């Protein structure tokens, strides 16, 4: 059901963990739906220097989290904000129709983390 790319990311997820003093953190989903993603980013000079995720969810949820972090690491905030759900799914060689919502979650968590970062910036 999953592509090889999905399984590869699931088996070897990139950027797992939590950034201690993160510039921004985004969390979406809830446990009763079966999916929670938390993405933390470290931003320097408007560039995502580091990014980490933790995910409670199915194979697709873990793989989309992983590929999403990989896609935006080293990118500027503006570039990262352009990341679409479709781009996440495409980077994995596609997802089964029933799992497409997982790609939404990953992009959403990232966008939340950036929003959190911007909010913190505003306060400073």
């Amino acid at each position, binding site marked *: 059901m999953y592509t090889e790319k999905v399984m590869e990311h699931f088996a070897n997820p990139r950027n797992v963990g939590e950034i201690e003093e993160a510039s921004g953190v985004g969390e979406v989903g809830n446990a009763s739906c*079966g999916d929670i993603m938390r993405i933390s980013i470290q931003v320097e000079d408007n560039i995502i220097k580091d990014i980490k995720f*933790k*995910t*409670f969810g199915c194979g697709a949820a873990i793989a989309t989290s992983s590929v999403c972090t990989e896609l935006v690491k080293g990118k500027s905030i503006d570039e990262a904000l352009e990341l679409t759900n479709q781009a996440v799914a495409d980077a994995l060689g596609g997802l089964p129709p*029933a799992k497409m919502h997982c790609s939404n979650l990953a992009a959403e968590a990232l966008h939340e983390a950036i929003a959190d970062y911007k909010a913190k910036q505003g306060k400073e």
Partner: protein
Amino acid sequence: MQPVYMDHGATTPVHPEVVKAMVETMEKSFGNPSSVHAFGREARKLLDEARASVASLMGASPEQIIFTSGGTEADNMAIFGAARGMRLKGKGNHIITSAVEHHAVLDACKALEKEGFEVTILPVDEDGQVHVEELEKALRDDTVLVTIMHANNEVGTIQPIQELARLAKARGAVFHTDAVQSFGKIPVDVNELGVDLLSASAHKIYGPKGVGCLYIAKGVKLTPLSYGGSQERRRRPGTENLPGIVGFGKAALISQAEMQAEAERLTRYRDRLIDGLMELPHVKLNGHRTNRLPQNVNLSFHFIEGESLLLMLDMKGIAASSGSACTSGSLDPSHVLLAMGLSHEIAHGSLRLTLGRGNSEEDVDYILNTIPEIVERLRALSPLYEGKEAVTSCTQRR
């Protein structure tokens, strides 16, 4: 590495002798049992023999067995047939079932609601057990059908069918039980259980997929689910699936011979798995500890999600299943686990291991060695697990 199949609750490998009997049937006895000629008569003979074998494993007479295309069809035939039949006789339109039934039962009952039937769904306790008092409270004068499964497919809990059936029948209702998971695994005797209708399926007992049967006690009338030829005493039309039915017969014979020893062996494995895995922190047993099928293990691992667990196990060559929503094709996790009072979150993290003929002591060892590291890996990935590491080590040190 030889893969370890522990999903016998989903389906079983076909027994080599069953395959052999089916091949022989296809090669030598391909006739239509309704035909007058020698090919037809030979086919008819095999059909009769298989019927006798299946009947014998449940203490029924051959003419009480109607072959179907599987457990689902048997359940639907029983439920639609009995409910509609009883209503036609003016007996009423109230049906009782339980919250932990297979979808073939639950969804058939729900479809009957659209036809004007009223359905009462009995609750279960935290072990998944239906209480006789609950049925007592629910029974009414217009109750026409009570359908409660013999053993649950997810958590293995065995229901007190004998008492439930006695009660229902005393009130004039037809009693059906879905014995798809228990048939061939633990003793199932229609007379001892006292049921009117009982469903079974071949592919759960090392027989072929696409064959099942419905036991129909003498005098129980069912309106048919479909129409056509006069096969199966006009109760189930269509050219009989002869190779499949012969395979079912063979599987029933083998189960009958091996059931007791196999149940004892698998109970040992089951208990090793349960006891071994329960030593991990934050694990919950689902279903009754002892009053459960010999082959069933069902545990919830907190903080992780079932499908991920299955995929990780699959990468290690272990085939299992889960009540996670992600594996059910629906949005909600297992209705069985929810009915037992589990939170959504914990239901999502359930793992079912169902043992069977091919499993060995080594398979049990392998699972006991493999699961802890996988659970740890997934927990490390989980945002829910934070701060639990400390608790974990505490528990482990104890």
